[in-house]
């Protein structure tokens, strides 16, 4: 990579300084209070985590290529899948979309110059880093093989590395809480004049719902990890059955956070998809209010269903029944979203740019993931499917097929804004197709494995499962090649990408209509005043080209370039 990455030689000196090049010292990056730069710090760190956790997944799949020992010993395998889960959940997917795209885009969509508490924002990043350092310490201390769920009493009997790992989760949780707190206040207090709740882009709505869940649920994982830590160090006997404690109580504590957490993971993705469907259908998102409020409904209902992870744990039947019943209800607001997204294309003008390809594969994959989630919520059925590969397939369909696919789509969508460069459409679309195919080959087979009874977290398995496991492993290679192509596309764009206009997609939200690509350090030269909805492409057309749809002042956009 040449050093011209950030500042291409072709830079036009008449263009005002942007947030990337106005100050280039390392210090100005590491101590920046600019939400856009903090977003980039997150982007780099979180991508590294994703890469590491993804490579671990590839190793897990490689080991499962044949029954018996393929590459590694059971202890190594157990550590690999645990680390894969822990990294993916706590350090990758929970912070991913809010910390990267929420940070970068949300304040601009609000017409604000920054988040409400910029210092806190930077602090969140460093707290996240400390969490990451602790994870590395735990890995070096060895023997983290609890799975990402840390179930007692097993976890409380392991070596000291569990102490570091629980601390890491505890601290990463704080980062997440502070980000959520910051965003809630920002959305309440920093909206541009005229930007009513009914005119908020749906991405903002979903970040708002996510933040509420983060603030309400994350403290509970904090206290859970603290209690686990004390269980391990002082044997306090709250969860350890040998001391009269109740291991099932631990599961309640864990899932009280971790089920809502799956909505921390998926809601921001919903937001991205809403925006993408609107922009690339050039059409008002159908049922705007329903889509906006269903996020809040999902966030709320998400707190009432955690026990569906415990149907065979030995919890009371009453609670299983209540939890199962409410679990189904979540399908309804989610269905409202899915159907409205599909409806958005109706009589629209659908473009098949790379972000839209991701949005369409999201719809396909997430629907499968969601419907199998509902199947798992069926009491009599979950008894058979619990802790089999059916569950593994379900959650990869929603987390990888849902959140990660949406996040990659969103990254392509906002890439021109973030870097000022276009990426190569052909490479982008090939990668999207590869990922779609690879993903299905990898994980659809796992549904079949699951119904046939293949338990999860198994190093070794019966010979009758081998063929399906091999297909799945081959799929993971296709999937990985697609993801590496994405990485390559982005690096290629940084080095050779064409310069992007301020609004290459013809979007109507403020970050496209009122800022340059890349934006100036303070986002806006003048405070925008909003008069239209976020998907009002007629208003956009009235002010010609990359005009200002969400405001009435066309001269603002003309003063650019």
């Amino acid at each position, binding site marked *: 990579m040449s050093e011209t990455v950030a500042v291409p030689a072709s830079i036009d000196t008449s263009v005002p300084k942007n947030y990337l090049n106005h100050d280039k010292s390392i210090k100005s990056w590491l101590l920046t209070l600019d939400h856009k730069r903090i977003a980039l710090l997150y982007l780099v760190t979180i991508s590294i985590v994703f890469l590491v956790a993804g490579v671990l997944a590839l190793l897990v799949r490689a080991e499962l290529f044949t029954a018996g020992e393929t590459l590694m010993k059971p202890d190594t395998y157990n550590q690999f899948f645990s680390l894969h889960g822990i990294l993916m959940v706590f350090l990758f997917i929970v912070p991913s979309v809010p910390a990267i795209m929420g940070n970068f885009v949300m304040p601009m969509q609000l017409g604000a110059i920054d988040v409400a508490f910029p210092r806190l924002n930077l602090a969140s990043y460093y707290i996240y880093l400390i969490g990451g350092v602790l994870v590395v310490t735990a890995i070096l201390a060895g023997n983290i093989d609890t799975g990402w769920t840390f179930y007692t009493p097993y976890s409380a009997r392991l070596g000291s590395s569990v102490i570091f790992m629980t601390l890491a989760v505890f601290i990463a949780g704080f980062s997440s809480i502070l980000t959520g707190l910051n965003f809630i206040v920002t959305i309440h207090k920093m909206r541009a004049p005229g930007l009513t709740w009914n005119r908020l882009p749906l991405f903002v709505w979903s970040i708002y719902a996510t933040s509420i869940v983060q603030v*309400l649920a994350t403290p509970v994982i904090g206290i859970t990890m603290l209690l686990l830590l004390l269980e391990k160090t002082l044997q306090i006997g709250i969860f350890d059955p040998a001391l009269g404690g109740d291991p099932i109580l631990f599961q309640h504590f864990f899932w009280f956070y971790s089920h809502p957490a799956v909505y921390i993971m998926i809601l921001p993705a919903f937001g991205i998809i809403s925006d993408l469907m609107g922009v690339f259908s050039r059409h008002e998102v159908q049922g705007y209010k329903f889509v906006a409020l269903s996020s809040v409904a999902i966030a709320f209902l998400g707190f009432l269903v955690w026990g569906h992870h415990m149907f065979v744990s030995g919890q*009371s039947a009453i609670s299983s029944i209540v939890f199962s019943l409410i679990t189904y209800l979540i399908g309804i607001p989610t269905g409202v979203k899915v159907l409205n997204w599909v409806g958005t294309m109706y009589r629209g003008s659908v473009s098949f740019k790379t972000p839209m390809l991701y949005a369409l594969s999201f719809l396909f994959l997430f629907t499968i993931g969601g419907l199998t989630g509902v199947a798992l919520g069926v009491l009599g059925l979950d008894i058979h499917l619990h802790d089999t590969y059916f569950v593994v397939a379900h959650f990869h369909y929603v987390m990888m097929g849902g959140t990660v696919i949406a996040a990659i789509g969103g990254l392509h969508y906002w890439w021109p804004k973030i870097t000022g460069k276009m990426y190569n459409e052909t490479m982008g679309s090939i990668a999207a197709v590869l990922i779609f195919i690879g993903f299905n080959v990898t994980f659809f087979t796992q549904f079949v494995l699951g119904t046939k009874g293949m338990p999860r977290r198994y190093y070794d398995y019966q010979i009758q499962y081998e063929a399906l496991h091999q297909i799945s492993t081959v799929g993971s290679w296709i999937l990985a090649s697609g993801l590496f192509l994405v990485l390559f596309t982005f690096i290629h764009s940084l080095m050779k990408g064409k310069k992007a206009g301020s609004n290459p997609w013809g979007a109507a939200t403020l970050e496209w209509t009122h800022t340059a690509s890349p934006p100036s350090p303070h986002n806006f030269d003048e405070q925008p005043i909003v008069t239209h909805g976020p998907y009002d492409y007629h208003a956009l057309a009235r002010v010609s080209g990359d005009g200002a749809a969400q405001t009435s002042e066309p001269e603002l956009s003309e003063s650019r370039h």
Partner: protein
Amino acid sequence: MDHASHGHHITPKSLLIKVFGSLILLTILTVAVSRVHLGALNVPVAIAIAVVKMMLVVTVFMAVKWDNKVNALVIGLSALFVSIFLIFTLFDTAYRGDLSNVDRVPISDQQRQQSAEMAPADAGAAASEMPASGH
């Protein structure tokens, strides 16, 4: 923006003193009540008094009464979610073992119960044998 009104509300000293006085009285009351045996009522009464005390602190000391209503909503939400956590967990723990597939009490308790029953039961068996042998 016209938030000036609630940003600068000054709570009168007399009100603060009154509330402080009531808090002290309620504390004395809660101790006094706990000394009397109300049976099943002891716990609800103690919690009710604590809730009243909390409301006093929140509304007056924390000035929620004069504050932006969003903040009141925020407090309401936290109370709501704490109750959800509590109630849904109790759905399990209070009814654990309601179907025959799981035992209601842990094994250690079952053993304790057994050994507690064993002792008098043995004595009883011995006693009932006595007249039989006396025949």
